């Protein structure tokens, strides 16, 4: 008996609005350049995030993009973190 597979749209599984999910943004090319320069680091030295990560569903990110994450911090109030999008896993 073939049952129709239920599929959800990307909007339906958008988890970005949940209170526990910190704000994810895609960096513009200019911003990416600025960040790389600021930390004098290569993209491969940055922490990674899988392209399949639910937080990226509506960001239209591609491998190599830099994601800016703004988190609530116990020590600093707000803190900025960067991750680079990768293909595998």
């Amino acid at each position, binding site marked *: 008996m073939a049952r129709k597979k239920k599929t959800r749209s990307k909007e339906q599984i958008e988890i970005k609005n949940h209170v526990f999910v910190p704000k994810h943004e895609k960096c513009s090319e200019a911003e990416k350049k600025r960040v790389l320069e*600021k*930390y*004098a*680091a290569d993209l*491969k*030295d*940055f*922490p990674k995030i899988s392209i399949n990560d639910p937080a990226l569903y509506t960001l239209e990110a591609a491998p190599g993009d830099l994601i800016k994450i703004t988190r609530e*911090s*116990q*020590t*600093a109030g707000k*803190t*900025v*973190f*960067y991750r680079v999008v*990768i*293909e*595998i896993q």
Partner: protein
Amino acid sequence: MEDYIHKRVDRIEFGFMSPKAIKEMASAKIVTPELYDKEGYPVDGGLMDIRLGVIDPGLKCKTCGSKLKECPGHFGYMELARPVVHIKFISLIYDLLRCTCRDCGRILIPKQKIDKCMEDLDHAELEGGLNARRDKIKEIIVELKTVNQCPYCKAKQFKIHLEKPTTFMEEEKKVSPIEVRMRLEKVPDDDLKVFGVNPAALRPEWTILTVMPIPSVTMRPSITLESGERSEDDLTHKLGDIVRINQRLFENINAGAPEIIIEDLWDLLQYHITTFFDNEVSQLPPARHRSGQPLKTLTARIKSKEGRIRHNLAGKRVNFSARTVISPDPKLEINEVGVPKIIAMKLTVPERVTEWNMEYLKQYVSRGPENYPGANYVIRPDGKRKRITSETKEQLLEEIQPGFIVERHLMDGDIAIFNRQPSLHRMSMMCHKIKVLPGLTFRLNPCVCEPYNADFDGDEMNLHIPQTEEARAEAEILMHVPTQIISPRYGLSIIGCNKDAQTGMFVLSKKDFKLTREEAIDLLSSIGITEFSRLPDKEIVTGRDVISVLLPKDFNFTGYSKKYKENKEDPDAIVKIEKGHLKSGVLDNANLGEGQGLLLRTIYKQYGPDFASEFLGRIFRLGNAVLAFTGFTTGIADIDVPSDIKQKIKDIIDQTYAEVDQLIKEYKEGTLETLPGRNMKETLELKILEKLNKARNRSGKIVADNANPDREIMVMIQSGGAGNLLNLAQMSACVGQQAMRGGRISKGYNKRTLSVFKKDDLSPAARGFIKEGFKDGLKPHELFFMSMTGRDSLMDTALRTPKSGYLYRRLANALQDLKIDNDFTVRDASNKIIQFMYGEDGVDVTKSENGRINVKRIIDKVLAED
């Protein structure tokens, strides 16, 4: 000056030795399992052949001509009658066999796809490093396993599987190592690169051994026992087995023995060579001594805690160290350590002889090792170390001249590093100044117990004596006790006033503490103060005046005592110091204690480590002196409770018992209202527990409220020097509920805890509630319940310690080379970013107040300066 050749290791390459290389390297061919002839001389071509190195004093190596300890040892080799698989390369061989053609040896990837494969691998490496490449290789191998036709020669491929540990089967037929070797030989160099194998360092056919390298005798020396008998190393035993079987195999093959016998011997040879490399292969019985203990072969020498890496390379052993039991000495400075004379005469400090100190050092030499302070050794400029004895003393005294080094005994003021395991944080190893004392234990100021986490119930500690100027300077600058007063974990003092000294300071800083000027001077001079001009020129002075003498003249401070939390209006709640004078407030452990209060931190920050350390030492001794001066004893009468209060407590407990009975009744009738997510029974337990705890707390509060605050026990509790209100309540009112695994005690007999109770008795007494206090004494069943929880918590700590130790080891290893870069990012050894801002706020906790920066204080300070 000696000339040194400096070279830098650029890289290390690991590879596998080809049979040719093994033969070229070898200096002897081993053909017989015999070790020595009748005269006890090593047999030529035997396993102890003198061409393999020397282990006996007096002999010279036949290969290099050098003596014992100079000859590094030389490899030999042995021709194997039949090839044998190397156990450590089984997985590589297995992968290669399954992924290459059985006929032509090519990899089972079509020509056009190989380049794509390599590209993928390079890409993976670029993205995720070598580990990612290895994972990718594994994926490729998994895919290739199912290919059943060679894309090059179209030959049919069969399924090969590994019969552990060393036999390969192709379609139920055994593939002999000879066959395996032939197949591996055919694999072209270029195809190997896909598997991550560098053909220059490792041709796969080399992993099937045809020649066996024999390690030198210097890495398996024999021991001569007291009886004159020789005991051989485990490796020699194993090699003996290998050579013996190999010779038998040779003979049988030459004699044309039946195939079964040869097969059997071959398998045996495989077994011996496998266990020679690794005696802990899971499918093989380990080779054993006659006594039954397993042999320690090559893998066991390297692996695990007792192996070469963790035991010899990572675990260093040192000279100039001592270990003994510790005991307290409140008269010591906090940066001192009392060292027994017997240890001070064993450990030494090297001092170089110069023109100016020659006579001085000669005195030490002439006193020798027997008289303190003397010297044990003299080191001549050529590096020869001479022990000073009554015979050599005269000659050494004459010989001594500038350039010699005298190793003299430890003396007061020498630098030492003091340590207590487990060394969990940097304050576990601190630099102390030595104080030589009589007795047999290390003595330390009780203030430094906290950073070491030491007590005196039999703890032992280690002492190290740095041997060079650089080491001493480094120890003193980086790890001296005064520099460690502020903990990097929370930015407050980890070394503070504790125990009696705390109580003493509390007593002294009370508002109405008065004493005559003479008494005050007496007190101060007993802690080493000789300057009394800051003491008011009055007949009667207050305790706060005495404390103020110790404070710096320009010190301003506002803090809160423990009382602030209860009552902000209390006159003692706010500690105010103005221009070095204590105006108000009591100095309890909220200000002077370990890990809390800003008083010590502020002094440390303003006047530096050395002053803070000295100040702390004075405060500590002053506290003790005050107690000695006023007299301070707590007795059993301190926990007495007036009879009306006693009745009140009894009423509370009786009332609670009645309430609990009511709950039980409701439960049995089934009318008890259940809490959400719980069943009836759980609800009952929770409610009873809540009621009983409330009863204990209420009776405890009554005791505390009615206790006389001037009694010694209350003074100790209020100061934070010893004990707390719970201790007092348990002694004078009610011990309370004994808990096991978060609930009341329910173990024991069927449906009851002890046989004195009825079955299904849920009353407080039957489930471990102790309504008596310690002073009145426990009933027999109460004592039993108490013993139960006592044993339970003892077991718990005993089992938890090793677990948390291992947890810490893993954590420390994972974090060991993280560092804060100069742009405040946290990075690992390969410069990968872990955190973009250290701790997310970039604050150095050591320089903060409890992890925060107090902006108000800074502004106040700047404004005050104008």
